[in-house]
C-alpha cells in the first residue's frame, strides 16, 4: 500500500520535472540560469529589450535602427509573405489548412516537438511539409520565399511571448541536449563556439560590431541583415556564423541546426517575438 503510494508520488513528480533524475536534463533550470547570467551581465537592459540584440546596447546603432524602422527595408518582404500565405496551392488549399489559426500569430510556438514522429519541427520545416503535403515543391531553407513567408508569420506574432515546449519525452530532451551541445561546442579554425561570441563576448565590440546576446536571439528570426540586404532564415543565420569562424557550415536545415534552434528558442521563452528582426 505504502509502496504504491510512493510510486504514484514519483510519477506526479516526474511530470512536473521532466526526466530530471533519469537524464539530468532540466531545460527550465537551464533557462533560469541563462536569464540570470544575461540580466546580471546587462543590469540596465530590460528583459524584453534583449530581443533587439545590439540595438539595445549601443546608442549610435540604436539611432540607425530607429531611422530604418520608420520605413523598414524588409517591408516588401513582409508584403510578399502576406500574399504567399493567402495564395492557394494548385490543389486549391492554402497554408491556412496546415497551421493552427491559419498561420497567423503562431510563430512563438516553433520549433515544436512532434511526438508522433519524435522530431523537432521548426517553422521552416512546417512550411515545407505543408507545401509537400499539397503537391508543391519545398522551398530553399535559406532565403527567398522561405524567408518571406516566415518573416510575415513572425510579424503577426510580434510581441507574443516565445512559448517553446519541451515535453517529457526522451527524444525531445535528447534534441534539446544536442542543441545545447552544439551551442557550446567550439568549431572552425578560429575555435569559437556560438557561446564564445554570444555569451562570453555578448555586448562587446568585435571590430566595430556589437555582438548580440544569445538570450532572445531566436525571438528576432527570421532576420533582415543590412549586410545581406535581405531577410534570411535561421539556417542562413547559422551557416553565416559558422563560416565566420572558418567552420564548414552544415547543410541548411541540418538536424543539429534544428536542435540548436530548439535549445536557443527555449532559452528565449517568455521574451517577446521581435521577428523579423533587423541586424547590421
Amino acid at each position, binding site marked *: 500500500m505504502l509502496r504504491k503510494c510512493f510510486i504514484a508520488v514519483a510519477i506526479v513528480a516526474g511530470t512536473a520535472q521532466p526526466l530530471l533524475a533519469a537524464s539530468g536534463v532540466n531545460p527550465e533550470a*537551464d533557462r533560469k*540560469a*541563462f536569464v540570470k*547570467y544575461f540580466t546580471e551581465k546587462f543590469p540596465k537592459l530590460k528583459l524584453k529589450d534583449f530581443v533587439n540584440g545590439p540595438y539595445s546596447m549601443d546608442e549610435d546603432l540604436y539611432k540607425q535602427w530607429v531611422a530604418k524602422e520608420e520605413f523598414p527595408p524588409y517591408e516588401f518582404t513582409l508584403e510578399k509573405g502576406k500574399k504567399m500565405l493567402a495564395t492557394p496551392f494548385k490543389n486549391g488549399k492554402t497554408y491556412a489548412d496546415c497551421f493552427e489559426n491559419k498561420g497567423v500569430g503562431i510563430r512563438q510556438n516553433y520549433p515544436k516537438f512532434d511526438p508522433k514522429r519524435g522530431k523537432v519541427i521548426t517553422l521552416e520545416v512546417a512550411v515545407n511539409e505543408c507545401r509537400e503535403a499539397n503537391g508543391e515543391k519545398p522551398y530553399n531553407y535559406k532565403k527567398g520565399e522561405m524567408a518571406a513567408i516566415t518573416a510575415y508569420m513572425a510579424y503577426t506574432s510580434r510581441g507574443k511571448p516565445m512559448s517553446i515546449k519541451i515535453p517529457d519525452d526522451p527524444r525531445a530532451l535528447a534534441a534539446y541536449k544536442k542543441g*545545447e*551541445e552544439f551551442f*557550446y*561546442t*567550439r*568549431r*572552425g*579554425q578560429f*575555435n569559437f*563556439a556560438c*557561446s*564564445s561570441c554570444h*555569451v*562570453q563576448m555578448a555586448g562587446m565590440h568585435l571590430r566595430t560590431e556589437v555582438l548580440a546576446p544569445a538570450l532572445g536571439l531566436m525571438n528576432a528570426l527570421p532576420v533582415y541583415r543590412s549586410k545581406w540586404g535581405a531577410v534570411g532564415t535561421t539556417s542562413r543565420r547559422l551557416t553565416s556564423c559558422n*563560416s565566420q569562424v*572558418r*567552420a*564548414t557550415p*552544415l547543410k541548411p536545415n*541540418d538536424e*543539429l541546426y534544428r536542435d540548436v534552434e530548439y535549445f536557443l528558442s527555449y532559452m528565449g521563452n517568455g521574451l517577446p517575438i521581435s521577428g523579423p528582426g533587423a541586424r547590421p
Partner: protein
Amino acid sequence: MRNRFLIQLAVVLSVGGFVTAAIAASADDFKAAYAKAEAASKKALAMKTGWLTTTKELKAAKKAADAGKFDDAVKHAKEAEALANASIAQSEEQKKLWKDAVIR
C-alpha cells in the same frame, strides 16, 4: 584550454611545413598526399566538424598540381591533412570540454 589546443595546431602545421621543404615532389607524391588529406577531410565533414580552411588548402593543392607545381601541391595537401586532423581533434576534445562553457 583553448591555448593548449592552438599550440597543438601550430605544432601540427609546422611539422607539415618542414617535411616538404627538403625534397622535390613528384606527381605520385602529390597523389598520395592528396588522398590522405581528402580522406581526413571527408572524415571531418562526416563528423560535422569541417573547417573551411581545409577545403581551401585542398583546392590550392589541386590547382598547384594541375599547374605541375608538385612541391607546392604536396605542401598544400599536407596542410589540408593537418587542418582536417586538427578539426577532428577539436571535435574529440570538445565532446567533453563543451560542458565547461555551459551557463550554470
